[in-house]
């Protein structure tokens, strides 16, 4: 390793650490989580094996026989050593215990009444029915609501409870009874089959498309071109104005929008003068919510395109405009024939860059509508965030949320590669395209 390589690695070191910690590791973890069913319910550490009402309901009917489910759900009464020991500890008559062990040892009764009848038939039975009932209870053996830390112990108990359990049934039941997280691919099939997914995709496309077209590219282009034809001082002033949203803190920025739109906000205060009833302009209809979401994002997003387009237009040599002017081209024809053809690369760059950043950014929606009203303005990234990390229901589905995030990462990486190829990235970084 040469001195230079060492030096290079030394300089890159901090960057590598940051990339690994803040990008690579989260992506890898997201990939891992997306193949688990982790949620608030399963916790992120291990779990126990336990038959509960909901486990029994979940057992698939085509894989587990109904009578197995019945025997799992019902209590059994087994005359075993543990029960006998409990009777001795209660101080019951040893002769009664002796006779029970002798005549019914290891016998299984499906109901308490049967065991009670059997006890009543014994020669050394206690007189008191209450004592007999108490003894019966000591033999009640049930898997329900009992925690097993180890799979082996649970399987043994299961085999005790259901004598003729098949291997497949055992596997299915063990799986269903485990309360911790497991590896699974079910997130993907669930994502694919959930009707809500389609709506979220439509929302996302609408959000990205409209913000991009109307503001990040469209309005940015209008600003760049119009300010080109303004005197220097005025154009700098307008560009500075449109840059302000970009540099204002996002929370305050959205708060200002909320003040504008709230029931007692600015719009209503003005309209109230004309006797109009107040309403929440941001959230009272889906259309309004979309208008605000796109305006809030667009006002922030237009500045980047504006700056890139402006500098690209400035890079066009002045004599080209002079030439076009004396050739008889009007302002509009100069825009169409001289400016726009020179903006092909900046346009492509801004479109793709902003597409990627709009796909993954949801902070302004989260701060303004939170995906509402209902979930009509819920986009993919917001949906993933709410599924995995923050929702009202309280059951945070880390695994499912991670799956949604992973899909977004995959789309992002695929799109980036596609765009780089489409652009021929070398073109962008090689010598300037306009010669003088």
């Amino acid at each position, binding site marked *: 390793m040469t001195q230079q390589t060492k030096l290079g690695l030394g300089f890159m070191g901090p960057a590598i650490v940051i990339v690994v910690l803040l990008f690579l590791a989260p992506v890898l973890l997201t990939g891992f989580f997306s193949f688990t069913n982790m949620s608030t319910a399963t916790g992120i550490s291990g779990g126990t094996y336990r038959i509960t009402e909901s486990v029994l309901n979940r057992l698939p009917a085509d894989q587990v026989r109904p009578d197995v489910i019945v025997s799992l759900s019902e209590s059994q009464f087994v005359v075993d050593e543990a029960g006998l020991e409990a009777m001795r500890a209660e101080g019951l008559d040893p002769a009664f215990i002796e006779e029970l062990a002798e005549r019914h040892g290891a016998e299984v009764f499906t109901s308490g009444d049967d065991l009670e009848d059997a006890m009543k038939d014994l020669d050394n039975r206690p007189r008191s029915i209450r004592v007999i009932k108490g003894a019966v209870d000591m033999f009640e053996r049930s898997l329900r609501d009992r925690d097993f830390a180890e799979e082996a112990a649970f399987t043994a108990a299961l085999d005790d409870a259901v004598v003729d359990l098949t291997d497949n049934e055992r596997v299915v039941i063990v799986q269903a009874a485990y309360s911790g997280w497991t590896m699974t691919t079910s997130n993907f099939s669930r994502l694919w089959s959930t009707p809500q997914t389609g709506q979220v995709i439509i929302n996302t496309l609408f959000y990205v498309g409209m913000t991009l077209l109307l503001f990040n590219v469209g309005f940015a282009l209008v600003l760049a071109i119009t300010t080109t034809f303004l005197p220097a001082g005025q154009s700098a002033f307008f560009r500075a104005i449109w840059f302000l949203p970009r540099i204002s803190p996002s929370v305050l920025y959205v708060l200002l929008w909320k003040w504008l739109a709230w029931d007692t906000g600015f719009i209503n205060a003005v309209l109230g003068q004309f006797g109009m009833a107040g309403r929440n302009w941001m959230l009272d209809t889906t259309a309004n919510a979309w208008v605000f979401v796109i305006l809030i994002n667009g006002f922030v997003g237009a500045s980047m395109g504006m700056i890139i387009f402006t500098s690209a237009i400035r890079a066009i*040599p002045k*004599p*080209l405009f*002079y*030439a*076009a*002017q*004396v*050739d*008889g*081209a*009007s302002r509009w*024809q100069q825009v169409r*024939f*001289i400016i726009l*053809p*020179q903006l092909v690369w900046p346009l492509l760059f801004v479109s793709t860059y902003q597409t990627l950043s709009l796909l993954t950014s949801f902070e302004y929606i989260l701060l303004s509508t939170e995906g509402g009203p209902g979930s009509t303005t819920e986009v993919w990234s917001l949906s993933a965030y709410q599924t995995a990390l923050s929702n009202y229901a309280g059951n945070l589905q880390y695994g499912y949320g991670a799956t949604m995030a992973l899909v977004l990462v995959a789309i992002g990486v695929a799109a980036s590669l596609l765009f780089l190829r489409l652009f021929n990235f070398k073109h962008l970084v090689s010598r300037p*395209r*306009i*010669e*003088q």
Partner: protein
Amino acid sequence: MQITLDKFTKRFGDVTVVEDMDLTVGKGEMVALLGESGCGKSTTLFAVCGIYRVDGGRILFGDRDVTRLSSQERNVGVVFQSFALYPHMTVAQNIGFPLRVQKKPQAEIDAKVREIAALVRIENLLDRRPGQLSGGQQQRVALARALIRRPAILLLDEPLANLDAKLRLDMRAEIRRLQQETGTTAILVTHDQVEAMSMCDRVAIMDRGKIVQFAPPRAMYDKPANTFVAGFLGSPPISFLDGRAENGRFVAEASGVDLPLPSHLASLESGRPIGIGIRSEFLDPSSTATVSGKISFIEAQGREDLYYLQLPDGKVVRGIQDAAHSAQLGDAVSWGVNTEAMLVFDADGNTL
């Protein structure tokens, strides 16, 4: 079409670049605006084509006052120093652009493009882009674009400055040919006196926003209005000496020069401070009036050599001699001067 500038004035902020300029370019004439950079020649051209607004005076094309018209309305062809070809368009699209913005039918545009391309001899390049062309080819495309609307007026802003020396010679002749074939009235802006003199019918030499002299090239060379014009025209440059008139002779004691004045100035009053200008071709071995000095430098120029004759006070007179001349560096020589051709200036630098 005749171009008239009437008291044309142009300011940039507080700086007046051109003030009260009068200039008339006759129909079909080609006129050069010659001067050093910053003298206002390009500014004048940009005002004529409407890129710059006029701050005072009028500009007339024929009888039409175009002072307030936009450049789109003036219909002038312009060739820019950088050629200003549209980099994303093919040669054909570049040439056809002035017609395209007029929304002419494509067939008509194609026909006109082919016709004009033939005129400037680039028919085989129509599908290329400007980046794929040599400097000379780009120049021809720029010319074709300027000429396609058959403008009555053609403006050329340093059209040869970006070409190499050999190509410059060819294009000089080529531009002149096109201008004469199309009968266009043309203004050429240049800082190169050879270009101005070789291409144009008349030359307007400019200094600090004013026209110093406006005359045909030959007349201007032979009879410059002042030392500025005399110094600007001619290669190698003219040599100036300061002295005084003394009984029909020019005397400069420090330089050791004593020459008879041209016959028409023989009666100049004695003692008056004057200057003379000696062009390099005025050195004439057959003349008896001589200047003496030492040869300080020799430039070989092929057919002839250029000698620097250093006078006793360090002033230099440049002279051209046949290459056969045998003088060596450091030789002390006395060379004759054709004193009849000699230029004589008064103390203010104006020609007497």
